């Protein structure tokens, strides 16, 4: 087998295992047998239709944010602000849906909202790319801080223009049925947004590997100097890559608002951005791999919720968060372990070639 692929699979499995193992030890401290809890969670997940549907449901926004991170990653750039771009998408989704609710038929509404969330995230992302290209701003910092700006904007709007008509809580009114993304399977919460996410992953793969723009993005990412020397304007590539990246994160706002929550509340899905980052690294930024990695994280999420609700055992919710946090941390560490292994391997090959 290809040594790189072997490293990828082995290190990722180790990362997931290490994360579960550590959280298992913590459970032992609470006098809970981790094996029983884990087993019960897995059994419920595969036997209960509703729960299984939830795995795919939770995976949906993660696919978008992971694609967002992966896309700039291919250009050797870091978009840490998927969370903020997701918020922007969510704001636009809820505002437009409430405005068009009952005015236009459902399919038209959904298409309009989808396109507008795409643009909303894209504009935020494009701005980061522009700052990078024009002023050499550090895209890592700018994108990270942009999340807080988006969060502040969202909180402001929830207290003012978008506040519910009852005027009690900082949240919006609910969107009526006609603005909902249709459910895929009866008896579950799984909606068509999951299909959209899969289609988007395929589209991103085509864009990256089959079009001249994707080609240029990868060329700039792998060797910016050679690309520049070949007449490719890397600044423009930065803006384009960040626009598309932001747009992908924005679409997660569409599927979460119109597909799941049907309204916007404060502290809405606060982890999709960071989880997406981990997933993208887990999948080595491969768009198709991201689908599977997102399902794994969806499953972790659902398993965590199940463990919290298990009768008889009292698993605190902080352990559930820790479990996901551990897995994520180990996945990110595994990325650096892989680069190290790769470098060592290349060095050994060279040494061997010289000694011959």
């Amino acid at each position, binding site marked *: 087998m290809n040594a790189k692929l072997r490293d990828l699979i082995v290190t990722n499995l180790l990362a997931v295992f290490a994360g579960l193992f550590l959280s298992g030890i913590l459970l032992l401290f609470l006098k809970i047998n981790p094996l029983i809890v884990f087993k019960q969670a897995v059994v419920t997940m595969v036997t209960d239709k509703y729960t299984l549907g939830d795995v795919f449901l939770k995976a949906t926004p993660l696919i978008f944010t992971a694609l967002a991170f992966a896309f700039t990653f291919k250009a050797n750039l870091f978009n840490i602000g998927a969370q903020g771009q997701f918020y922007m998408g969510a704001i636009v989704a809820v505002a437009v849906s409430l405005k068009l609710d009952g005015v236009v038929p459902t399919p038209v509404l959904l298409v309009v909202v989808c396109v507008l969330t795409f643009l909303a995230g894209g504009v935020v992302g494009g701005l980061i790319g522009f700052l990078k290209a024009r002023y050499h701003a550090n895209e890592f910092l700018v994108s990270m801080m942009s999340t807080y700006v988006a969060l502040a904007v969202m909180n402001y709007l929830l207290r003012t223009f978008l506040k519910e008509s009852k005027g009690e809580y900082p949240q919006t009114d609910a969107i009526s049925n006609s603005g909902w993304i249709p459910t895929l399977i009866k008896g579950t919460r799984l909606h068509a947004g999951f299909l959209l996410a899969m289609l988007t992953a395929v589209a991103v793969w085509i864009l990256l590997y089959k*079009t001249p723009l994707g080609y*240029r993005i990868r*060329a700039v990412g*792998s060797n910016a*100097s050679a*690309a*520049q020397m070949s*007449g490719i304007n890397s600044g423009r590539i930065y803006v384009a890559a960040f626009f598309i990246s932001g747009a992908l994160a924005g679409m997660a706002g569409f599927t979460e608002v119109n597909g799941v929550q049907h309204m916007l509340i404060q502290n809405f899905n606060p982890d999709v951005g960071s989880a997406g980052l981990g997933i993208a690294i887990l999948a080595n930024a491969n768009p198709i791999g991201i689908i599977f990695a997102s399902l794994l994280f969806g499953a972790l999420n659902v398993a965590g919720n199940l463990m919290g609700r298990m009768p008889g055992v009292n698993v605190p919710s902080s352990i559930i968060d820790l479990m996901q946090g551990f897995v994520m941390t180990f996945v990110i560490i595994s990325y650096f372990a892989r680069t190290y292994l790769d470098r060592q391997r290349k060095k050994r090959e060279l040494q061997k070639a*010289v000694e011959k």
Partner: protein
Amino acid sequence: MQAPFFELRNISKYFTGVVANKDISFSIQRGEVLALLGENGAGKSTIMKILYGLYKADAGKILMEGREQKITCPKDAMALGISMIQQHFSLVPAHTVTENIILGSVHGKIDYKKCESEVKRLADQYGFEIPVDAKISELDVGVQQKVEIIKALYLNAKLLIMDEPTAVLTPQESQKLMDFVKDYVAKGNSVIFITHKLKEVMDVANRIIVMRNGEVCGDLNASETNEGELSRLMIGRELVMPEKDRQEHSGQKVRLSVKNITVEKKGETPVLKDISFEIHEGEIFGIAGVSGNGQEELCEVIWGALKADTGTISLDGQDITHLSIRGRIGKGIGYVPVDRHRDAMVMDMTLAENMMLKSSYDAKWTRHGLIDRKKLSDYTKQAISDFMIKAPGPDAQAKGLSGGNQQKALLAREVGHAGALLILNQPTRGLDLGAINNIHTTILEEQKHKKSILLVSTELSEIFKLCDRIAVMYKGSFMGIYSGDELNTEKIGLLMAGYSAKREAAKG
């Protein structure tokens, strides 16, 4: 015999994809000036960075007066009395001279008065005029270098390593630096001088280590050698002068015209100084010279990657001075840069993908907006057979190919889209003889197609074999433009070392 001051034994260093140093051994005595001579990329800086603790050697050891030493960081090196002055100074521009010099060697409350007077005393000792309380950013490069030297002396350095110290200095400043070096070693200290300038070496060094391709290929006493021998060792091969039927092109129309090109960083000596020349249709114009004398910068100015401060460039009578690289590709200019890994190929992509790197905006590669894989693949297959590239196929990773085959592929790409002018910077460097012949044939073939070719090479045999006219470059300017028949090895060697033809004539 007394053990040498410092000795390097069998040092090897590998970077990803490159052997930087291979089995390097040499030593330096007290009171000696050692010159480390070699072309750019020969591994001189790497071996010195190992001695200074900036890099860790993969094999070999370092001895001081016969005892093995572990140098894992510059602090260890400094404790042994080694100090290195980097090509790019490590000074804090916003701090004063004194603050920079005492950086890292003071603790607790700083008595600036005392420090300043100490620095002054050191500077006076060597006749340096340094304003001790001025900010670094206000000083000239030459003075900044003196600050670096004083910094080393302040740390009680016994072995001073200088990486290309004269690169940024004027001739007068260089002379002063040489005087200092002689003065310094007279006190029982040692100096290692990294350079590729033959003249300096003969002027100041007691002993000379010549490096090529990461290996030591000569360890000579300065009194027993001459510039001719050194340049031969550096370049690597005894020169043979093949015959070529040189063509007269002055009647042909002018393809490329370069006028008064100067590139100059503020306060430093110019990298390119008032360069003017013309290349005619179907002519091969050669630029000879030791690498690092401005050849790469000249290529980049013509290619559009480096902006000239003054001067104009025109192609077929059209001014292209301000045209972008993409615009120049459109005009039919091709460029094979000296460092293909950095500037010309994306090694993580396939061979086919690399073939479209410069024409990715061209609609010929797409169908319905998607890349036409089949067309690209067929084109690449054709190039593989036409240029005899040894590759498993169009989808082979570029990095999996040998250097010679990468270079052939690169040449195939450039020849494919450059209809007017080909800029080739050391197109055969590091290749085996078969690949070299192949590339030479291609170059002569393109000449027949009325293309104009600018060939930069440090291989004199290559220059003489292929070029109709030859310019010799030294320190950013042309020493003259000659037709191939006007030059011989000795004459071109002197020109490359910076002796102008006129001065030689006057002497003779």
